[in-house]
């Protein structure tokens, strides 16, 4: 198929789909697990669910709903493609050079504006140390 994330070329099935942050998937799966635990009849989860839950717990950068919401809001205002938005939140690059290396479609963006965005992203991560 003609797909290339570096150039933001995706199959049309994904045109109307939202990208999800690793942190959001973690919250959704944990919630689902809790619901299932409360239901005695519910079957066990398979390896796909469990491996994904483990993975999202390992790599989730943001812990609370509030932080995730704030991060989404911050990145949405930067007018990024939904793929770029999720990549920045998932990978949290340190600076513009790293961001452009990891997400090549950002190449034409202004470095200063990108650095500012990344700095704000970093403060959200750091502020989590002070949350409960």
């Amino acid at each position, binding site marked *: 198929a003609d797909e290339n994330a570096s150039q933001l070329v995706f199959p049309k099935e*994904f045109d109307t*789909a939202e*990208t999800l942050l690793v942190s959001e998937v973690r919250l959704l799966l944990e919630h689902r697990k809790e619901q299932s635990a409360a239901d005695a009849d519910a079957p066990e989860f398979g390896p796909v669910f469990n491996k994904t839950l483990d993975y999202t717990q390992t790599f989730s950068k943001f812990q609370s709903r509030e932080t995730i919401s704030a991060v989404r809001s911050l990145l949405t205002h930067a007018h990024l493609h939904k793929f770029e938005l999720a990549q920045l939140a998932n990978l949290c690059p340190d600076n513009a050079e790293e961001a452009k290396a990891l997400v090549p479609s950002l190449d034409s963006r202004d470095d200063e504006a990108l650095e500012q965005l990344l700095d704000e992203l970093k403060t959200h991560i750091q502020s989590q140390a002070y949350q409960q």
Partner: protein
Amino acid sequence: MFYHLPLEHEVLLHPKYFGPNLLNTVKQKLYSEVEGTCSGKYGFVIAVTTIDNIGAGAVQPGRGFVIYPIKYKAIVFRPFKGEVLDAIITQVNKVGIFTEIGPMSCFISRHSIPSDMEFDGANPCSYKTKDEDLILQQGDDIRVRIVGTRVDAKDIFAIGSLMDDYLGLSS
């Protein structure tokens, strides 16, 4: 990349389930029939999030079964060429590094690992730079770029590379 996708599925219901618990049975069957599956088109279906619509059941001519067309939304994981993902090393050997990214396996060939890293067969196996500044071994978190995917009947397998800047061991 994780996506929230609207999808469709048909549940075939045997008459033994006709009764007050019918819709609940249809929902349970949806969960067990789609969750954990994988296709080349949509990737791995991790979990159903909402059931948007369960259509009117159509009795199949000649059989007693009823088909329920269902519209639902699910979390899916679909890798794309060119995407950078976090991965966990599961095995290291002289042909390369095997990793897992959520439900998916990703293999990084020896030739896609920077040439300044050499294979060290001593237990535990690893790839390391001469000065031992960087060591990649089982259990490590690394960033990998997907350079290709192989789709089986029910599985997606990815090929990755560590050759670009900022890939490899996460700081």
